[in-house]
Every structure is written in C-alpha cells, then in structure tokens.
C-alpha cells in the first residue's frame, strides 16, 4: 500500500493508506490510551478510550477504528481530546471497584495506569456499584468479574486466536457479564494468554494469585523448551525463584502468545521432588556427599568399570529437554573417551526404522500456505504454536487434509479427515505418490499400488497448490513403516514442490541433532545400548520409567554390574534404584543455554535464577567431569563458547539408503500408538500441578473401536495397559490410541 503523509500534533509522519490511526501513533511513540484495542485482535472500538481529535470531524474519533487518509490532521493532546478522554474514564470507573491495593492486578493494570493520567480525582457517581458473582473457570485463571470493563479482549482472543469461543458477553446493558457458557471451565491450550490481554484485574493467574507485586520481581528474557517453537518468555523472579512466566513478543517465533504449557510449567521448579544434593550409592545405601566427592566417585566408578581400551563399554543418553550446550559437551566427552554410544531418541521402538525428514518451511511461512497435509499428529496439543500458525493459514483460506488413526479436536476447519489404520499409512502415501507420478515413470515399489479417490484428490491438491506443506507427526515414530512413510513424504514433496515439516520429535530434539548427539560410526543407538548391557551409562535428566519406549529393558540394563551416572533435576524411586551416583542439575530457567527451534534458529538464554541448593547447571558439571577425566579441549569460560563451537562444528549427514517398502503386511495384530499427555512430556511438566488439574491435563484414555476391544478382550470401564478404555467407532481398525498421564510400562 502506498505511503501517505499525515500530521499528528503538528508533526508530519508517514503512514500506509488504510491503516488505523492507533497503529501509526504506536509506531511513532505517541501515547494514546486504550483498553479494548489489541494489535493482534480485531477492532472492537467499544471502550472509547482512544478518542482523538481529527480536524474536520465534528466529534472526537476512536484512533483504533479510524483509517488514515492523506493530509489528515490529528490532535492527540488538545483540550477537546483531554476532556473526552476524561469523560470516558469516568464512565469506565462508574462500576469499577476503586480498591487497587487489594487487587492482584495492581501495579500492572492498564486501567490503573490510565486512570492515574486521565482520571478525575473525584466522581459524580454516588450510586451503588454493580457486583458480579464469580464462577470457577478452571485451575489456571482466577476471575474477579466485578472488575471487568467489558473490553471483550478475552472474548475476541477465544474467537480469533484460541479458536474456541469460550468466553462471551451474556445479558445486556448493566447486566452484561463476560463469562463462559454455563460457567464451564476454560479448556483452550492457549487460555493463559487471556490473563495477558485482560487490561484489568478481572482475569489473573491463579497459581500466582496474591503472591507478589510485579515491581518486586525481575524479568529475565528466556526461552521455553517444551516444544519445537521455543517461545520467547520473560521469567519473572523474586529472591532466586521463578514466580511467574509471561509471554515476550517475537513475531518470528511466538508472536505475542505462549501456550499454557510454557506459561505454567515453572510451578514444577519448586516441587519437593527436586534433587538438591549430590548422592553416591555405597553398598546399596544412598549417602549425601560434597560435589568433589561425588565427581571423584563418578570418575573412579567409570575407571573401575571400563579399562583403557574398552571405551565402547560406556554409553550416554540424554533427554530431549537438554540444552544445545549440554548435548554438545556430553557427546564430546564420550567421543574424547573413544565411545560413539550416544543417543537422545529414547521413545522409539525400532531405531533402524527411525524417521529422518528435514523441515524446510519457516514458522512465519506456515501462515501463508494454501494447502497442508497432516500425517499422524494432533498438532493442537503437541505443538500449540505451530497449530496456531496453521489456524491462521486456514482462516486465510488454506485447506488442510488429515491422515490420522482417529479424529482429533481441531480448532479450525479440516477439509477431509482420513481415518486409517497405522499399517495403511504407508500405503495411502504410496497411492498419493503414484497419483503424483502418473505421467512420470513410476518406481518399482509402486507397481502394485492403485490409488483410492481420497489419495488422488490429496495428490491433486498437492500438485495444484502454490504453497503446500506435508507435516509428519509424532504418532508415526513407532509405525513399523516409519522410514518408508518419511521417504515417501519427502519424495511426494519433491515431486509436488511442497515443503515438509517434521514434528515427530519435540522439545530440544533439533539441538540434539545439531550437537551430533547421535551414535557415530560403530556406535550403538539407544535401544542397542540397553540391549548390550554396557558396563557404564551416563544419563542426562532421564527418568527411565517415563522416557524409554521400553522401560522394562532399560531397568534391566541399568541393573547390577553396571555403573550408572545420573544427572537429574528431579529424583524419583526408579532413578535412585538404578543409579550409582546422582548429580543434581539445574532445570529450566536455572541454566544458560540454547534451544534450536523448527526454523533452525538458535535461541540462547541466560539463567534467570541460580540452581536451587547444591544443584548446578549441567554444562558446568560436564565441564568439570571432563577435566577430572583428563580430557582435552574443555576450557570454556562460559556457555556461549560452547554454543558457538556446537553451532560451527562440521556435521556430515549420511545419505539414507534404507529401502522403501509399502507392502501392507497381512494381519499383523493390533498397533498401539502411545502418546504422553501434553502436560507429561517432560519432567518439569510432570511436576507442574495446576496444569494437571486442567481438562487437557486430565486426558487419560485408551481409545479403540469395538472390534479391537473384542480382540483384546477389554471393554468400557476396564483398563488396557493400565489406562481406562474408551470404546468408540471413530478409531481406525486394529489400533489403540493411548493418551496417558503416566507411563504404561514395557510396551512390547
């Protein structure tokens, strides 16, 4: 759009024709008060606070809903504006309690701030004020609706961003109330953002309620590591503790929003299960010791188990939440010692068959796709911020097709939902591939494939769309044909000029790959390490019961006659059973480090607080351990030196020679897809109590259809692998989809 010139308070500024006045004043740093306007939400123009004087207009105009015109002359500070704003302020305060000292929003309240500048010191209103009865809307948001000024930001947030209209304005006039239907709880996975957008104390953070005032805390910019996006946040700290997490703007990553998972996970940091002191196991009994003793014990233990030429008897495993620097140091230690037994892929049944698929589309580009194909994913719960971008694309007219084992609750329109059994996933992709390759010489393995209608129409969409993306999700990781699925996707993408997005692993898994935290030449992968029963293991923030695909095998491997070094942020029964030494390490916000997101963007962060008690950041522990092991090349002064070394190391990607096979094996029994509850994906989340009280946190079901249930001889009301059974015909044949809060043990 063309640039035009307008005059604000006597100064000429440039603007784009058609944009709203308030975005010009915001850009120019001219203060215009507002309550209902929010840059990421639609314009309501209901609070009337942003009145400005436009020359030629008989009455003051709302800056949020007045488009700019060439030559427009605007006054934001004259007497007419001041008088109008003062009058509006008085009306807004008619029903608003004037008890800021007992309001949780006090000190960070837009109404309080604006009232200080624009309000009158007295009110003509002597009648009784309106009182609204509050209802419990869930464990994350506290309501105090008497304070509500009906700006409808939360209502618009639900409609436009959250994708589920939960809050609404019921009644009219003085009886207007902002509330959810029937006072039901709020269920959105992004609900915490309503706290951020609320300009008053009507919606506040429940876990943080009445804890502190905002000015008592320091805000440290940080990165949330629970998903592939790495949302930018501020960790607000007080006396060495993280007390609240709020969103930080970054249009290339999370815009202004963060998921509830990123917002409320900090609660776990102060859980009583934190591991706080180094401990060593002597004759089967745990003893708390000093750090130097624990580390010497570790070095001795490793030396005892592994003599000089047997370095390949040591293995290192790390959880996906580790930082880039931690991955890098641990793999460097192992490689310096001479072992290539390094892996972070713990929950995959068959690593020979593991997925390799590059992502080649940026988060911001996801918004402008016109066609998307999602395979094996429930993105809303797995990757809320990626799902948010997809939703924006759909609202802008994109179509999304889904291939899943059961229908999920998408918060946007789905073009077609193809529910098929896991063993048919590769087949349908082969059919799409065949339709795509119609004219081109088809590959051998496609000779017996004939495309069904749905596959043909997906192929057509991929061929005709200008910007299309194929998304591979985490339900595929344990599909027996996972590698064929990934290869077919990359082939289809190539032929149709589509992008690919691999969201099959989460948290900081991309950093692990970047740090080369995978087995090298001759090294064992995670499953092989467990099967080989090595003489020593170094575990980085691993909780065997939860993290391994087969926890039974893991516990066997960590049993007698091995030396297990556990670096953990939390303690639990299983980890103390199978370790010989436990080293307490820092958790989220307590260490400096880096997250690598799906764009390949390395986002580094500093520690917001120091690690509690005697726990230490893992990168420091690893550095000292390397020194004690007399390894060379570990003279780092701070974590940024490690970061640049990790980022700049030369990595060579081996070409993937595994063959594609699309033969749907005849009757192969029942496929089980196990997915952790979105609030149980890492150890910090598992200790964040408020999240577990939400509806999403409560999800705990093994869904299957009737014929599967009959084959497994279970029924509604019974349990399968310890998870309550839900029989529904919407699940594909011969498939159980488990979404569980707790581990389900050794899964075949």
């Amino acid at each position: 759009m063309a640039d035009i010139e307008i005059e604000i308070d006597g100064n000429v500024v440039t603007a784009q024709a058609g944009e709203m006045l308030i975005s010009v004043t915001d850009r120019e740093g001219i203060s215009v008060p507002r309550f209902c306007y929010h840059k990421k939400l639609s314009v309501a123009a209901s609070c009337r606070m942003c009145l400005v004087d436009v020359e030629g207009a008989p009455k003051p105009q709302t800056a949020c809903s007045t488009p700019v015109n060439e030559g427009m002359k605007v006054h934001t500070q004259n007497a007419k504006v001041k008088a109008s704003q003062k009058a509006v302020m008085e009306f807004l305060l008619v029903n608003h309690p004037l008890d800021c000292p007992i309001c949780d929003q006090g000190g960070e309240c837009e109404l309080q701030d604006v009232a200080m500048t624009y309000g009158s010191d007295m009110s003509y209103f002597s009648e009784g004020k309106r009182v609204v009865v509050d209802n419990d809307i869930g464990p994350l948001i506290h309501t105090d609706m008497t304070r509500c000024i009906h700006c409808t930001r939360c209502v618009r947030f639900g409609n436009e961003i959250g994708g589920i209209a939960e809050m609404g304005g019921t009644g009219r006039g003085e009886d207007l109330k902002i509330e959810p239907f029937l006072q039901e709880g709020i269920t959105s996975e992004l609900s915490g953002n309503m706290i951020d957008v609320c300009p008053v104390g009507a919606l506040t953070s429940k876990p943080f309620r009445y804890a502190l005032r905002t000015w008592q805390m320091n805000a440290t910019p940080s990165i949330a590591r629970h998903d592939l996006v790495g949302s930018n946040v501020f960790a607000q700290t007080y006396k060495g503790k993280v007390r609240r997490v709020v969103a930080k703007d970054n249009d290339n990553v999370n815009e202004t929003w963060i998921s509830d998972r990123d917002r409320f996970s900090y609660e776990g940091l102060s859980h009583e299960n934190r591991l706080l002191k180094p401990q060593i196991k002597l004759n089967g009994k745990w003893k708390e010791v000093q750090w130097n003793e624990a580390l010497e014990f570790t070095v001795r233990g490793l030396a005892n188990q592994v003599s000089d030429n047997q370095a390949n008897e040591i293995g290192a495993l790390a959880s996906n939440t580790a930082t880039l620097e931690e991955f890098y140091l641990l793999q460097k230690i192992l490689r310096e010692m001479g072992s290539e037994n390094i892996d972070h892929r713990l929950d995959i049944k068959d690593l020979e068959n593991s997925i390799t698929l590059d992502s080649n589309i940026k988060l911001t580009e996801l918004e402008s796709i016109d066609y998307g194909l999602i395979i094996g994913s429930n993105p809303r719960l797995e990757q809320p911020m990626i799902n948010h971008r997809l939703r924006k694309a759909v609202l802008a007219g994109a179509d999304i097709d889904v291939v899943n084992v059961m229908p999920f609750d998408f918060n946007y329109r789905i073009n077609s939902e193809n529910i098929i059994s896991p063993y048919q996933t590769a087949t349908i992709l082969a059919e799409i591939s065949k339709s795509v390759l119609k004219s081109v010489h088809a590959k051998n393995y496609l000779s017996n494939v004939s495309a069904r209608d749905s596959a043909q129409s997906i192929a057509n969409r991929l061929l005709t769309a200008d910007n299309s993306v194929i998304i591979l999700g985490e339900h595929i990781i344990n599909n027996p044909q996972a590698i064929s699925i990934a290869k077919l996707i990359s082939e289809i993408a190539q032929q149709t000029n589509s992008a690919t997005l691999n969201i099959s692993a989460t948290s900081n898994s991309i950093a692990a790959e970047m740090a080369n935290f995978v087995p090298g030449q001759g090294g064992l992968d995670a499953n092989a390490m467990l099967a080989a029963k090595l003489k020593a293991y170094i575990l980085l923030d691993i909780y065997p019961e939860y993290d391994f695909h087969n926890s039974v095998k893991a516990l066997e491997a960590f049993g007698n006659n091995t030396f297990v070094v556990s670096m953990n942020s939390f303690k639990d029964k299983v980890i103390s059973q199978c370790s010989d030494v436990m080293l307490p390490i820092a958790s989220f916000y307590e260490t400096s480090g880096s997250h690598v997101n799906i764009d390949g963007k390395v986002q580094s962060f500093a520690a917001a607080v120091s690690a509690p008690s005697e726990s230490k950041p893992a990168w420091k522990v690893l550095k000292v351990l390397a020194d004690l092991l007399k390894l060379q090349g570990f003279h780092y002064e701070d974590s940024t030196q490690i970061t640049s070394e990790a980022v700049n190391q030369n990595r060579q990607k081996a070409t993937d020679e595994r063959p594609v096979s699309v033969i749907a094996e005849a009757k192969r029994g029942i496929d089980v897809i196990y997915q952790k509850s979105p609030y149980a994906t890492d150890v910090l989340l598992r200790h964040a109590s408020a999240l577990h009280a939400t509806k999403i946190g409560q999800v705990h079901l093994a869904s299957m259809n009737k014929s599967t249930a009959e084959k497994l001889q279970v029924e509604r009301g019974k349990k399968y692998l310890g998870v309550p059974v839900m029989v529904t015909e919407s699940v594909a044949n011969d498939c159980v989809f488990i979404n569980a809060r707790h581990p389900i043990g050794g899964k075949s």
Partner: protein
Amino acid sequence: MISDKAKEQIDAWIKKYPEGRQSSAVMEALKIVQAENANSLSAEAIQAVADYLDMPRIAVQEVATFYENYNHKPAGKHTIRICHNISCMLNGADNLIDYLEQKLGIRTGEVTKDGLINVKKVECLGACVGAPMFQIGDKYYENLTEKKIDEILATLK
C-alpha cells in the same frame, strides 16, 4: 430436544440465508425451540440450537440473553409485557404495574401459581400513541386503566 417439526421450521429459515450462513437463523430458531419447550429456553435447549446451527454455545447464549423475548425460567401460558418507558410512565404505567402485581399476587418477572400468567416490564414497544399499554401474545392493549385490565385478565384462560 428439537422436534422434527421444529427442525423443518428452522430449516425454512436457514434457506433464506446464503449457504454456510445458517447462524443467521439463530433468533428464529431460538423462538421456535422456546415455543416448543413451555415457553422457555433451558441450557440444553440452547446447546441443541447451537449444535443444530453449528455455532459455539456461548454465541447462542449471548443472543438468548441479550433479547428480552427469550425466557430462561418457565414462563406462564400468557406473558404480559408491560411498557414502562417514558410515554407510558408519564401516563401512569408505574401505578398500573403496581395494580397488576397486586391483582395477580406476583412481582414482575414471576409466574402466577396456576402457571397461567407472567408479567414482564419491557422497554418501549412503539405504541406511545396509546400509552399506557401492554402486549399479550401478538396483541397490543392500549389506553389501559385498572378497569380495562380487569376485563382483559378475565378473558385469559
């Protein structure tokens, strides 16, 4: 919750709007469902309308609570909507409201014990020329007096 007959009626309204804009029929749909359910809308009824029109429940709730002509408590067989806006007020509506309340033994917003009549105070119905006035069903009764009210009430069965 919604009978086949009601669905037919709602579908006729949906047809009046472009495809995909079925939510435009929400007011009529609520009216039809209300008529079928003892002249009031329960939460289940609102839910049913929301599902039928593929709308968020809260959006239907917003409409149902915004307009005065939807009831959320069981209403009487006949609803007297009595105007208390400026013209009627100046012509003695307040006294007539007191009289009605006394005569029926209920307050405005309540239903008589036999479930026959309920009284609602409403805003201007656009019949100022005949103030004071009230509405029962589709019919306006104008230039009301206490005597006239007695006569009208006697006809309600």
